């Protein structure tokens, strides 16, 4: 977790590493749109498994799988539990009672705390959505050189200040993880043991104690990096080399991705029109059925 190299992009000889950064970002966009647009648990699960499959293709290390598993399990558990407890749509089916409404104080105050089956299902769908995005986002971070991302953002005419800001945060995130561990160690060496106390005040104080050195170091480092890249001609008023044209197979892949996005968006619109009673086309009944069952 605190190992910097787990978080930093590493060069490797895999199809995902070799893929042009533009294709990767287009894929990420497509996955995100589908993750938001799809509502069924099955297609979302399929999308999630596909995104995990890409980590296999990228030969992510065991440590990276561990990090991914922790994030996904915590995300899945947190979303499902919160939705199961606080689901307020109807119909809803109670499958367990944690606090009876007749329990003094808390039961009377909350009206009882229950676990709802629909809430669990809804939580699982939400968790799959966020899990898919997280999986793809980490895949891009772990397989793409920050400089290539920067090149791509600038190629797409993103203001260079914004592009640099995004890339700097990606570049320094691994270092910050590593340094957080060092700060905890340094504090323990100086007699400060925050983990031994349950006092919220102490925890807040600890957060500041950790934040101070990390923030100071990050600011110093960001300032140096900014001066360094400017000294290497990065910034306003220069004629940067543009990214080369994509090779033909990757151009086809790009067109394919956009076609899939377009088809998906069109189907979603058609289905929404029918679902909300705005427009119904009998000849598209097969499409409606497919959408209702699968998407």
């Amino acid at each position, binding site marked *: 977790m605190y190992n910097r*190299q787990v978080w*930093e*992009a*590493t*060069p490797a000889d895999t199809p995902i590493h070799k893929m042009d950064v533009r294709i990767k970002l287009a894929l990420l966009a497509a996955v995100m749109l589908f993750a938001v647009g799809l509502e069924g648990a099955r297609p979302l699960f399929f999308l999630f498994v596909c995104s995990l499959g890409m980590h296999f293709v990228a030969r992510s290390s065991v440590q990276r799988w561990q990090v991914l598993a922790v994030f996904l399990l915590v995300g899945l558990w947190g979303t499902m539990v919160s939705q199961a407890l606080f689901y307020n749509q109807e119909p809803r089916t109670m499958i367990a009672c944690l606090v009876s409404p007749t329990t003094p104080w808390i039961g009377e105050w909350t009206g009882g705390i229950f676990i709802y089956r629909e809430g669990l299902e809804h939580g699982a769908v939400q968790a799959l959505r966020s899990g898919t995005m997280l999986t793809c986002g980490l895949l891009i971070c772990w397989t793409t*050189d*920050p*400089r*290539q991302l920067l*090149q791509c953002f600038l190629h797409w005419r993103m203001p260079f200040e914004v592009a640099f800001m995004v890339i700097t945060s990606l*570049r320094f995130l691994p*270092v910050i993880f590593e*340094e957080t561990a*060092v*700060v905890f*160690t*340094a*504090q*323990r*060496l*100086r*007699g*400060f043991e925050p983990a031994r106390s349950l006092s919220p005040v102490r925890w807040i104080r600890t957060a*500041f*104690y*950790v934040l*101070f*050195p*990390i923030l*100071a*170091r990050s600011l*110093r*480092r960001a300032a*140096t*990096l900014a*001066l*360094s*890249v*400017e*000294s*290497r*001609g*990065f*910034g*306003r*008023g*220069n*004629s*940067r*080399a543009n990214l*080369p044209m994509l090779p033909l197979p990757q151009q086809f892949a790009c067109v394919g991705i956009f076609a899939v996005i377009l088809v998906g968006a069109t189907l979603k619109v058609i289905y929404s029109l029918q679902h909300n009673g705005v427009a119904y086309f009998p000849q598209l009944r097969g499409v409606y059925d497919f959408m209702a069952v699968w998407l």
Partner: protein
Amino acid sequence: MGVIVDCRELSFTYQNSEAPSLQEINWQIESGDFILCTGPTGCGKSTLLKAFNGLIPHEISGTLQGSIQINGKDSLQCSVANLSRTVSLMFQNPDDQIFSTSIADEVGFALENMGMTPVEIQRRVAETLAWVGLAGREQGSVHALSGGERQRLALAAVLAIRPQVLALDEPISQMDPRGAMELLQVLRKLNEEHGITIIVVEHRLHEVMPICKSVVVMEQGRLVWQGSQRDAFCQPEAFLRLGLRIPQTVHICHRLGLAAESAAVDDAAATIRAAYPACSTVVQEPLLLQREETELAIEVKALEFQYDPAGRKVLNGIDLAIPRGQFVALMGNNGAGKSTLLHHICGLQRVRQGQVKLLGQAVKGLDRRVGMVMQNPDLMLFKSTVEQEITFGLAHGLGQGKQSGDWRELVDRIGLGGMEDRFPLALSQGQRVRVAIASLLSCQPAIMLLDEPTTGQDLGHIDDIIGLLQEYTQKGGTVILCTHDTEVAARYAERVVVMTEGKVVADASPRQVFSCDEVLRSASLRTPAALQLSRRLYGGCALGVEEVVRHVQQASMGSYAG
């Protein structure tokens, strides 16, 4: 040969600062020169470098007066991108400036910014990597490089532009002697073979001075001394006055009233022999100070450790016994296992194989009797004032028996007087290290471990720090000081332990260890110049300037007493 950088009455004051950082600088730099720019911390050296490539005033706000012309162009009229093609600037820490994950991408970044085609970039990257000794490693990962190689990569990243002037801000301050030597050799080659003008800002002038052509000294924003390398050797008082460390050979000649012609040991020996023909009396110095048997502070037996079960052993059968009150220098190349050993001693790393005992008790976890100063002091400081930082340990139950006011004397002695209310993280690098040391010394732990505490410190402050540590050992405290600096270890340590590849390869008095060239070579360390000179002059084994000077003077008077 023409003037490539021309500063006229150049002054600069940072925004929100009252005192100017540069004051009326008049400096003409000839093309092809190799300049060492030095001076005490905060004298304006780095600010001046930033003015050379336009970062000042274009990107760093402040008031600039006077003019600065780069290759005949007024820097105020040119953009940073434009000026960076003539003057490239490299910073101290490679990790803060390396941007990419692959070597080729890092070197190619500046070329992309210049709008070069991929074919040209590929060719230029290969050529540049060859210049810095990283040929054929284009596809490698930057994480696989050693500290010295990363610094050379950072150099290649700016060199790819093919600048006429290369300005380097403390490029070797954090490097081990081997890495520093490799980088300096590359710089010399760039200057001699490619005619690139080099300006190096550095505190470790005893290492840079022997290869530069001219030297400039700054003090409080002004150029106070300027001359050729030879002038610098002849007038070392200009450096000593400011607490700057000159090559030991030059220092010895100066102390003997002689003018050194170079920093080379042979030249110094010839000069001294000519003036003091009787200095060659062979002497036998005591090799090891005999200590009375005292309680062991640290006892390490057959300690082995590896981070990865399938990987190499980081510690490979370490045996070490350090009595109370001893001042030990722990030396070795990067990756030798020094920090891992320290982590075992203070209990940060669990002992898996072997044994570590502190004051007779086995280490079972983080041990409060040990204070450790980490290599990066920033990560140790977290309070809002220097006073709170230094008294933190006392307030948390460390340093029992210490009086609450004792720390004030410590603050004064370590050169932090008057800074008690300052925010520690806003202090200079050297000051931050001293705050970290003071915060531990205030608690008087039984054992102190210090990882490279002399980095970024000038000679005066090194003396202050070591003086306090020596006082601490006289009271029974035990010190292990991790350092690459052989001159500091030779001068102050009672005992030197050298590690290579997880093993202790030498453990003896400084005199014994530094006499053994083979051990030093295996650990990428340099024999102190004073020792080399004493060996050449009289077959001696002197550890510092004073010792050689005393011998030469006494031998020449015919009163050498041994």
